[in-house]
């Protein structure tokens, strides 16, 4: 069947009444899960998993997928309005989204992140539709050495993600890597820094860390200092969501860059939306003519990461569908749903089950359109939340953080971690240490260590493996270039200062 024949077959499948219904259920639940801080998409999908046994396989996947990409739409809401990320993938949106809300531009920020989500999602879908098999094969050629080089590139690109002292930012990255090393060592099974606590054997939960240093710390600092009725009522109307011409002009390039970065990381098994969002933000800040605007409500700082995590959501279906390799536990569940219905994921899926594959892909479009229709009117509702006095709002947010974190793994220990990281977060804020690099180090660190050790093991301890492999060498030279470039640009800036 030709390409357009496939598309129309897919559209036909996705537009059936029952599939439209399941798509709506999925994106609705996804939005809800995204808005509530802490609670994870994995828990929700696994609850619904048994129901899918009794459903038609395409409908089942359409629904589960809707939950997955729907969370990214809702996830930025709390980041922007409350400085409390809905999911770890939206943590970086806090950096500029919250300052926007404080300037009374919350509605604009919410509207623009919905646009960014839609654009990112759409670009991800286009890439998934056109290049899935090619990209999947390319992803396979990435071995441990390539992954390490890529993570190193990410880390170098992302230093300077936060404002203020470079030393403090770097300390936070290192502390993040240290926190990431807690738990069972993959190679020997040694429990590192677990001190006999069995819960630490699996390491620290990213949700607990993000909720603590971003969410709880924010609540503690804001209680008492945030005045009631901080906002003019005119900020809360629907009219206030209209972006200015300047917003539009500044947004479209970051969206494209963010979507490309997101699509790339999404297609790599094991990386995913959180990392994509952080890197997209870092790239935007680096490539900006005036990086000092970031962290103070720069619209680029919300557009890039939001389009990145939504693009990554879509392209993460590439390894799952085209190779049968799940990039994350959530994807593993979706594969499970396929296998239970006797469908073998892999390169043959597109030819053997065209209505499933193309129906699912087309449902992504429909789901994304539904999400826009669902989210734009909700903006009015969410923004009105800001009119609620803070002393009534913070216990509500705190309850959702606690219960949401608990529900991820039914773990009271994770809630305890939220408390500890909340205390750490307050300390960090008071001493002007940025939180974003801590999360980045935490996400990147274990992957870097793991792949570095694996590459060294496979190369019999020969460092040349990182340079002898062409993809790895290319990535490393980009990293070296970025380092040199930022070195010279600081030098130039200093010279300009002394001369001027």
């Amino acid at each position, binding site marked *: 069947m030709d390409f357009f024949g496939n598309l129309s077959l897919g559209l036909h499948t996705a537009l059936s009444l029952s599939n439209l219904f399941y798509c709506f259920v999925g994106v609705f639940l996804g939005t809800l899960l995204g808005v509530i801080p802490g609670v994870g998409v*994995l828990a929700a999908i696994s609850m619904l998993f048994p129901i899918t*046994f009794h459903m038609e396989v395409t409908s089942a996947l359409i629904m589960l997928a809707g939950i997955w990409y729907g969370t990214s739409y809702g996830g930025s809401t709390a980041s922007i309005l409350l400085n409390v990320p809905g999911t770890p993938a939206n943590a970086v949106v806090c950096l500029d989204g919250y300052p926007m809300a404080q300037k009374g531009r919350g509605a604009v920020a919410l509207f623009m992140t919905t646009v960014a989500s839609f654009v990112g999602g759409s670009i991800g879908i286009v890439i998934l539709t056109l290049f899935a098999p090619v990209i999947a094969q390319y992803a396979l050629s990435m071995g441990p050495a390539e992954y390490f080089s890529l993570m190193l590139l990410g880390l170098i690109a992302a230093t300077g993600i936060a404002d203020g002292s470079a030393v403090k930012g770097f300390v936070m990255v290192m502390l993040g890597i240290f926190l990431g090393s807690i738990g069972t060592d993959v190679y020997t*099974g040694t429990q590192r820094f677990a001190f006999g606590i069995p819960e630490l*054997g699996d390491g620290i939960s990213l949700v607990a860390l993000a909720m603590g240093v971003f969410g709880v710390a924010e609540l503690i600092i804001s209680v008492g200092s945030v005045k009631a009725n901080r906002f003019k009522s005119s900020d809360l109307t629907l009219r206030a969501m209209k972006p200015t011409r300047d917003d539009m002009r500044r947004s479209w390039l970051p969206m494209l860059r963010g979507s490309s970065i997101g699509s790339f990381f999404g297609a790599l098994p094991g990386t995913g939306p959180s990392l994509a969002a952080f890197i997209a933000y870092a790239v935007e800040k680096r490539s900006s003519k005036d990086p000092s605007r970031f962290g103070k409500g720069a619209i680029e700082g919300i557009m890039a990461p939001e389009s990145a995590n939504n693009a990554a959501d879509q392209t993460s279906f590439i390894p799952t569908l085209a190779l049968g390799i799940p990039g994350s536990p959530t994807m*593993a569940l979706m594969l499970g749903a396929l296998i239970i219905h006797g469908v073998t994921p892999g390169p*043959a899926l597109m030819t053997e089950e065209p209505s499933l594959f193309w129906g699912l892909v087309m449902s992504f479009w429909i789901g994304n359109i539904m999400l826009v229709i669902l989210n734009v009117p909700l903006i009015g509702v969410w923004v009105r939340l800001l009119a609620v006095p803070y002393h009534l709002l913070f216990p509500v947010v705190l309850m959702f953080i606690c219960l949401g974190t608990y529900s991820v793994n*039914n*773990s009271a220990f994770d809630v305890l971690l939220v408390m500890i990281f909340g205390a750490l977060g307050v300390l960090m804020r008071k001493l002007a240490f940025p939180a974003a690099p801590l999360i980045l180090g935490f996400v990147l660190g274990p992957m870097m260590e793991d792949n570095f050790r694996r590459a060294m093991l496979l190369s019999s301890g020969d460092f040349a493996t990182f340079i002898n492999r062409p993809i790895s060498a290319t990535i490393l030279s980009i990293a070296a270039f970025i380092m040199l470039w930022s070195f010279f640009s600081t030098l130039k800036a200093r010279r300009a200062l002394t001369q001027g």
Partner: protein
Amino acid sequence: MKNNALKSIACAALLILPAVGMAQSYPKGSIDFIVPFSAGGGTDFASRVLTEKLSEQQGWNFVIENRGGAGGNIGLSQLARAKNDGQVMGMGQTSNMAINPTLYASIPYDSLNDFTPIALISSQPMVLAVNQNSAYEDFESLVAAARENPGKVSMSTPGSGTVSHLSMEVFSDQADVEFMHVPYPGAAQAVTDAIGGHVDFVTASLPSLLSHIRSGSLKALAVTSAERNAALPDVPSIAELGYEGFEASDWKAVVGPAGLPDDVVATFNAAINQALQDERLIETIESEGSTVEGGSADELEAYLQAEYERWAEAVSTSGATVE
């Protein structure tokens, strides 16, 4: 205002009432089913499939509680400490019932004495598989290569101390060969790097490999079960290739806290065996490459004892420990 609070508490109480008042003698209300792994894994899958069928056939109400962590040890220790009235059950499996007690320096339960065995549910073999373009045509050539170049033939596994890793330690010991063990955090990545050709072969459970073997991106060389597997009838077992007595499988079994009343064990065991006869359930479990087991509670008890001793020996030969 206070009234509001009371009202909502009353509402909350009403919501849970229906689950409490049931006339039947066993079970009294809903049964907590502890899955010692997070949602989405193989044990979770088997537990949900089984409890679905039990609810359908017996009208029992299950509440699945995913309590992951420390290789299944946290969930099982919770089960060990639960009240032994049959209202709390759980899913044990090879790693946390037979391997971890020897592998971990300390473990919060005694897997032979803290549980009442109910019934064996399913088992799955490990499979050794190579990339489709691999030079290794069959199992013998792989072993020959490892014998020629000790420690040079690389093998990915889902992790250190997993059934996949330890079964190959047992094999290496028996066959006197040495592979380069490359552990991964989970089966997905171990499989990915085998398909990408970054390691020479992968050893992992059949469910994680089956779809790749079917699609042709991986070629199965041998299975670790004593017999061939129904899903891969053309793939020989290691035992039949001249390594007599070699057998390793990853099984799952329903267990309860120690000292369960005999009638509860009998009722639950009978219900499970009935569920395991169901064709749809068999089909679901076999579709992922597992074999449906079943049998009496006494048989499970003897099996647990035997497996415990076998893996204890494997762990000590491998030299692996977790502190």
